[in-house]
C-alpha cells in the first residue's frame, strides 16, 4: 500500500514538473484545416490547405514572439460528412487546437461545425456558401465564412439568366449535396419569381457520369438554359454531353464549377455559351494577388487554386484572433471561446479584399462575380461583378 502511495505521489510530482516545463514556453497552438485531400474534389481542397499553410508560415511570428509554437494540422474530410465529423471529434479533444479553417463542402461543414460548437472552437470557412452555415443558432458563436452566400449567389445567377441571357425555359439539375441542392433551390425560387418557365428540376447523384436521360428530353423541350447546382467534375460532363447532343442552350452554374479542370473535362471545343457565378474572385481581380501568387508558387511550386487565397485569408483571421485573444489575457494561452469571440473583431485588408465579419459570422460585404467560361481557364471572362452586403445580421 505504501509503495502504491509513493508511486502515485511520484507520478503526480512528475506530471506537475512536466506541466511547469511546458508553461515556460507557453505551449503549442494548432490550427486545423479540414478540406478534401483525397477524392474527386481534392484539387480545391489541397488549394485551401496550402493557402492556410502559407499564412501560417508568414504570420506565425506574431505568436512565436509571444512564446507559443504555432503549427498547422491538415485534416482530410474526404468531402464526406461522417469523415468530417469524426475528424472534428478528434481535434476537439486536442486542447492545442484553437481554430479550424474549413470546409470545402457545405454538407460537411454543417454537421462538423455542430461538433466544434460543443467547445466553442472557432471555424472560419473559406468556401462554404450554404446559408445554413451562419444561419443556425446552435453554431452562431463559432461559425464564420469569408465568402458569399448561396441565397445571394443563386438569385444573382437567376438575375443574370433573365436579364442578360433572356432565359424563358429552364432546366435545373442539382447534385443532391447540401451545396448543390441549396444553390439550385435559391436559383429556382428567384427565377420562378421573374416569370421564367422551369420545365424540369431534378437531382442527379454526385457520382453519375451519364446524363443522357435528361438531355434526350431536353432535345424535345429545347430549354434556353440548363442550370447546374454542383461541382465541376459533373458540370464539365454535362456541358460536354449537352453539346454532343446538339443542345445549344446556355449553361449556368454556381461557384462549384470554378476550376481550371472544368474546360478540360468538358473539352475546349464544347465551351460555348457556358457561365458560372462565383464568390471567389479570380486572382487577377484581387489587389494583393500578385505577391500572394508569387509566394505561393515559390513555396509549393504550384499555382494557387481558386480557393487558395480564401484559405490563406481564413488562416490569417484565425491567427489574428488568437493573437488578439492572447494579448487580452496578458500573453497567456487564450481559451477557445475567447478566440471565437475575437474572430468577429478581426479586421484587415486581405488578399481577397477587406475582411470583416458581421455579428452572424458572414463577411460584411462579399463580391459576386458572373464569369463566362472560355476555352481554357485563362480565357474566362468576367461578365459582372456585384458587391452585396450579407443579408440579415449587422
Amino acid at each position, binding site marked *: 500500500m505504501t509503495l502504491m502511495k509513493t508511486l502515485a505521489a511520484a507520478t503526480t510530482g512528475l506530471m506537475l514538473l512536466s506541466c511547469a516545463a511546458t508553461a515556460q514556453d507557453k505551449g503549442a497552438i494548432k490550427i486545423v484545416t479540414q478540406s478534401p485531400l483525397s477524392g474527386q474534389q481534392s484539387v480545391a481542397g489541397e488549394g485551401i490547405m496550402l493557402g492556410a499553410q502559407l499564412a501560417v508560415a508568414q504570420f506565425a511570428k506574431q505568436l512565436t514572439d509571444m512564446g507559443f509554437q504555432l503549427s498547422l494540422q491538415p485534416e482530410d474530410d474526404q468531402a464526406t460528412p461522417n469523415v468530417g465529423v469524426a475528424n472534428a471529434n478528434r481535434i476537439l479533444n486536442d486542447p492545442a487546437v484553437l481554430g479550424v479553417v474549413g470546409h470545402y463542402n457545405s454538407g460537411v461543414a454543417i454537421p462538423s461545425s455542430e461538433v466544434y460548437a460543443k467547445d466553442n472552437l472557432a471555424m472560419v470557412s473559406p468556401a462554404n456558401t450554404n446559408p445554413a452555415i451562419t444561419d443556425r443558432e446552435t453554431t452562431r458563436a463559432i461559425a464564420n465564412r469569408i465568402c458569399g452566400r448561396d441565397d445571394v449567389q443563386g438569385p444573382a445567377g437567376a438575375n443574370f439568366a433573365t436579364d442578360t441571357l433572356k432565359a424563358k425555359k429552364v432546366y435545373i439539375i442539382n447534385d443532391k449535396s447540401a451545396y448543390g441542392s441549396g444553390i439550385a433551390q435559391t436559383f429556382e425560387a428567384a427565377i420562378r419569381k421573374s416569370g421564367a418557365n422551369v420545365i424540369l428540376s431534378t437531382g442527379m447523384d454526385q457520382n453519375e457520369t451519364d446524363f443522357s*436521360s435528361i438531355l434526350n428530353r431536353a432535345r424535345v423541350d429545347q430549354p434556353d438554359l440548363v442550370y447546374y447546382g454542383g461541382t465541376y467534375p459533373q458540370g464539365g460532363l454535362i456541358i460536354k454531353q449537352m453539346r454532343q447532343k446538339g443542345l445549344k442552350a446556355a449553361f449556368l452554374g454556381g461557384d462549384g464549377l470554378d476550376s481550371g479542370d472544368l474546360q478540360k473535362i468538358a473539352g475546349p471545343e464544347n465551351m460555348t455559351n457556358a457561365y458560372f457565378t462565383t464568390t471567389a474572385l479570380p486572382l487577377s481581380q484581387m489587389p494583393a494577388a500578385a505577391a500572394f501568387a508569387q509566394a505561393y508558387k515559390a513555396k509549393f511550386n504550384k499555382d494557387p487554386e481558386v480557393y487558395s487565397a480564401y484559405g490563406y485569408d481564413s488562416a490569417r483571421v484565425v491567427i489574428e484572433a488568437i493573437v488578439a485573444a492572447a494579448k487580452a489575457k496578458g500573453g497567456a494561452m487564450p481559451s477557445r471561446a475567447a478566440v471565437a469571440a475575437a474572430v468577429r473583431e478581426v479586421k484587415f485588408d486581405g488578399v481577397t479584399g477587406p475582411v470583416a465579419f458581421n455579428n452572424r459570422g458572414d463577411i460584411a460585404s462579399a463580391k459576386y462575380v458572373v464569369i463566362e467560361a472560355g476555352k481554357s481557364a485563362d480565357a474566362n471572362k468576367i461578365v459582372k461583378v456585384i458587391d452585396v452586403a450579407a443579408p440579415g445580421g449587422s
Partner: protein
Amino acid sequence: MSFQLVLELLPSTLADGLILGLLYATIALGYTMVYGVLGLINFAHSEIFMVGAFVAVELLTYVLAGSPLHPVIQLVLAMIVAAAVSAALAGLAERVAYRPLRRSNAPKLAPLITAIGISLFLQDAVRFVESLFGQFIRPFPSMPFFDIPLPLTPNDSVPMKSLVILIVAGAMLAGLRYTVTHTRLGKAIRAVATDRMAASLMGIDVNRIVMLTFVIGGALAGVAGTLYALQFGRVDPFSGFIPGLKAFTAAVLGGIGSIPGAMVGGIVLGLIEMLIGTFVPILTNNAIGTEYKDIFAFGILILILIFKPTGLLGRPSTEKV
C-alpha cells in the same frame, strides 16, 4: 405522356441504353471469365479496368496527341497498350494475391477480401502517382473525329464513338467466344472450369490456365476502360467502382460464368437504366426523377433473380459430390 413524345425520345434512348449496356457488358466479360474458372468474384477487376482507362488516356494525351495517325488507329494503339498493362496487372494480382490463398486452401471468403484490398491499394496508388504530375481527374483528349454525328432518324443522331463502341464490343465478344470454344487454350480453360482436379490429372497445368484466364480478363478490362473513357470523357482513380458494380450486376443478371450471358445482362441493364431514367420522370410528371433509376434497375434485377436465380442465360450448377 403523348405518344408523339415517346416516338421522339425512343430512338435516342434505345441507342444510348445500348451503348451504356455494351460498356457494362465489356467489363462484365472479365468478371464472368474468372468466375467461370475459379468460382471467384475478382472484385479488383473494376480497378484493373480503371488503370486501363488511365493508361489509354495518358497515352492519347501525352504520346499520341498531335500525331498524324488517324484517330481510329490512335485509339486502337491506346487500346492495345491499355490491354497489355491491365493484363499484366491482372496477372500480377493473381500471382501475389490469389494463388497463395489457393495453395494454402484458405476459406472461400479470403480471396474476396484480398480483392477488396487490391482495389483500395490500386485506387490510392493511382491517385498518388497522378497527383505527382498535377491533378488526378484526367480528361480524355479532344478528338473531334469520334463526335462526328451519324444520322439515326431524320432528327436524331449518334456520335461516331457509339459505332466504335458497338464494333469493338462485338469483336470482343466474338473473339472471346471463339477462343473459349475453338482453341486448345479454350478447351483447357473449360476443363479447369469443369473440374480442376480432373484437369490437372489430365496433364493440364491448372495454375498456368488460371493465370491466363486472369490475363485475358485483364486485357478485356483494359479495352473496356479505353471505351469507357472515350464515352464519358473523363477518368479518375475512383471511376472504376460504380461501373464495376453495375458490370458485376450485369454478369449476375445474364448468368455469371456465361459469356453471352454477360453480354445480354449488360445490354439489358443498360437499356433498363436508360428507359427508366427517361420515361419514369415523364410518366410521373417529374415526381420520381431520373436520380432514382438505379433503384428501379436493381429492383428489377432482384425480381429476375428471385424467379430465375441462375440469371437469364445461366445454367443451374450441379453440386459436385
